[in-house]
């Protein structure tokens, strides 16, 4: 069985290890491009959220490379993601693609069903399969760790793009690793190389810290968010997200089995005074993140979401109040197939300028107060 899956940032590294470990032949869809977007947009419902459209584009491009089975995650609402598979299946059927869809529903709904599906997919013995799951997990953790360091380094490096070159090499090495030892070596080498990168003291003195929160796909997929992290890095912003891939996998597929400490988890509680209820997706986390990152001394926060994303519209409605209370500047960006690069960059630059000036003024007024005393 030739199996494929949708892209979402570095998810392909996890998925290749996982599906490969189950003994499946893995067709990694080509990275998202304009063609992926155009295929997806052309055949999807007009008002569907952009991740659905990009996923569909991934499936079509994977089908062209011989994929027969699609493996993806599901959900039980209220966010639309839980119904993606059903809609995509019908679209593919009408387009004449004969692909099977195996939807891994979250364990709180039907744990036995999840096990049955993995059994169905599994083409090898259990010991090898479990090893595959573990490999996938180690790789995800390693990539996340490297990514966090890259996000820290980008606004500080002397030669722009150095961190990203190391990052790309590291991702390839981790993706190719066949044993836990190889994963570990690739991780250590990447971290050592990143530590050795020459930094620019002038840039470093001006670094602002921005938290990125919002809908998970938009947060993790650079094609969807127009590569916002790299752009912010070049503008001198250190970026931290409230959620990384391993945390999402843990929450969504392992039912929170691993004990990970993510800002998103804390943010859920901190949202209480503003949004006392689950609203699907990460809407509540987006609100609570304002409190969390304000306490951590961040300079700004950007909420990212697909246009028409319901949980994030709820969050967007509440963010201004939380932003005011916590004295943390917040900006919301919605993305769809029409989002243009130029307007996007202008908004980012304006935001970074604003928080940088604000930070500077804050620093001066504090220095002034001290002089006065």
């Amino acid at each position, binding site marked *: 069985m030739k199996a494929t899956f949708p892209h979402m940032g570095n998810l392909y590294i996890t998925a290749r290890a996982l599906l490969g470990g189950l003994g499946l032949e893995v067709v990694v869809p080509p990275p998202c491009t304009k063609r992926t977007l155009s295929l997806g947009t052309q055949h*999807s*419902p*007009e*008002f*569907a*959220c952009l991740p*659905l459209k990009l996923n569909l584009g991934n499936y079509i491009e994977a089908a062209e490379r011989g994929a027969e089975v699609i493996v993806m995650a*599901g959900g*039980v*609402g*209220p*966010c*639309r993601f*839980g*119904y*993606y*598979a*059903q*809609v995509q*299946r*019908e*679209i593919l059927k*009408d387009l004449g693609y004969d692909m099977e869809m195996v939807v891994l529903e979250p364990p709180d709904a039907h744990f036995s069903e999840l096990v049955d599906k993995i059994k169905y997919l599994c083409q090898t013995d259990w010991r090898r399969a479990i090893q595959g799951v573990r490999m996938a997990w180690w790789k995800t953790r390693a990539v996340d760790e490297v990514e966090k360091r890259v996000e820290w380094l980008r606004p500080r490096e002397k030669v722009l793009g150095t961190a990203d070159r190391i990052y790309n090499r590291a991702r390839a090495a981790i993706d190719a690793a066949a044993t836990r030892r190889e994963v570990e070596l690739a991780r250590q080498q990447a971290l050592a190389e990143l530590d050795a990168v020459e930094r620019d003291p002038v840039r470093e003195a001006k670094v602002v810290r921005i938290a990125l929160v919002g809908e998970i796909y938009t947060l993790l997929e650079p094609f969807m968010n127009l590569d916002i992290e790299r752009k912010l890095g070049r503008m001198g912003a250190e970026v931290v997200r409230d959620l990384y891939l391993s945390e999402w996998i843990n929450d969504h597929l392992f039912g929170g089995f691993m004990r990970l400490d993510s800002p998103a988890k804390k943010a859920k509680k901190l949202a209480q005074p*503003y*949004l*006392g*209820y*689950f*609203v*699907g*997706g990460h*809407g509540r986390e987006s609100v609570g993140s304002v409190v969390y990152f304000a306490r951590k001394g961040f300079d700004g926060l950007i909420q990212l979401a697909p*246009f*028409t*994303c*319901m*949980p994030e*519209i*709820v*969050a*967007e*409605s*509440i963010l*201004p*109040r*939380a932003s005011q209370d916590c004295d943390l500047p917040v900006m919301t960006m*919605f993305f769809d197939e029409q989002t243009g690069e130029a307007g996007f960059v202008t908004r980012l630059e304006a935001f970074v300028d604003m928080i940088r000036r604000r930070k500077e003024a804050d620093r001066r007024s504090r220095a002034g107060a001290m002089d006065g005393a």
Partner: protein
Amino acid sequence: MRIGIPRALFYYYYFPLWHAFFTALGAKVEVSPPTNKAILDQGVRGAVDEACLPIKVYYGHVLALRNKADLLFVPRLVSVEPKAYICPKFMGLPDMLRAGLRDLPRFIDTNVNLRQGTEKVLEVALEMGRLLTRNKRQILAAWEKAQAVYQHYVALLESGLRPGPAIERLTGVPEGRRRRGEGEGPGRWKVGLVGHGYNLYDEYISMDLIGRLGRLGVEVVTPDQIPGAVIETEAARLPKRLFWTLGKRLVGSTLHFLQRPDIDGIIHVSSFGCGPDSLVGDLVERFSQRTRKLPFLYLTLDEQTGEAGLQTRVEAFTDMLAWRAAQ
């Protein structure tokens, strides 16, 4: 005690129930006026741009009640039946209003979450009732009465009456500006009009779509006239249980209409950017294309929708019905 109930969103589904409950507990129910331009404009200003039209309109109705009520009834409707939700925006609504609007009366924002079972509704009733009286028996009696009224309401709808007149008959709250008798009774064609009640029955939002169709000789049947059991059975044909209550009504009623020989076409009314509808509407259109080639019209409403454009599309649709009848 005056309790303000916005004439928006689930008003068209549950108002007689709420009205009977609060009235039986001695409160006076204040309803906001039928949607008008001022209400819409205020709502559009109060809500974020990305919110859908019905949510913006709801904001407007809440503002219209600002000085007319001691308590505002804006429940958090998480789930009105087991294993289903309405829409994330309904789940966040009281918080969205609190964050976005100033100087509002106190809220009755009780969580209504029947996801785990409908028995929970009694707790909801007790929680709301306690705001008005400490007498538990009185609350339970009021709830029982309210449920009887609600059953009556559902029966009236299934007998073919629209929510407006049915609400007027049961509660005395006048319907508004609709010209009586228009858009009802037999027409030349019968069309299944699917969509959410807060779009279909709010004459301002829908730009009097039902009346407009009536004047063109189209008699409409809406999902509220279909018994719940039929909707459930039809919607169960989907490969995965649909977890949106209103989406389920949309699918169930459309699949039902597709089987009825007396239905000449289907109109799906939706709000621009409606999340659940973006997927459910697509499925519905696919199924109707596959099973039976009925004329299908998809209308999207937002605060920019113009009457002329709507009229043109509706006329084109009836031309199509006439052309097909002539074949």
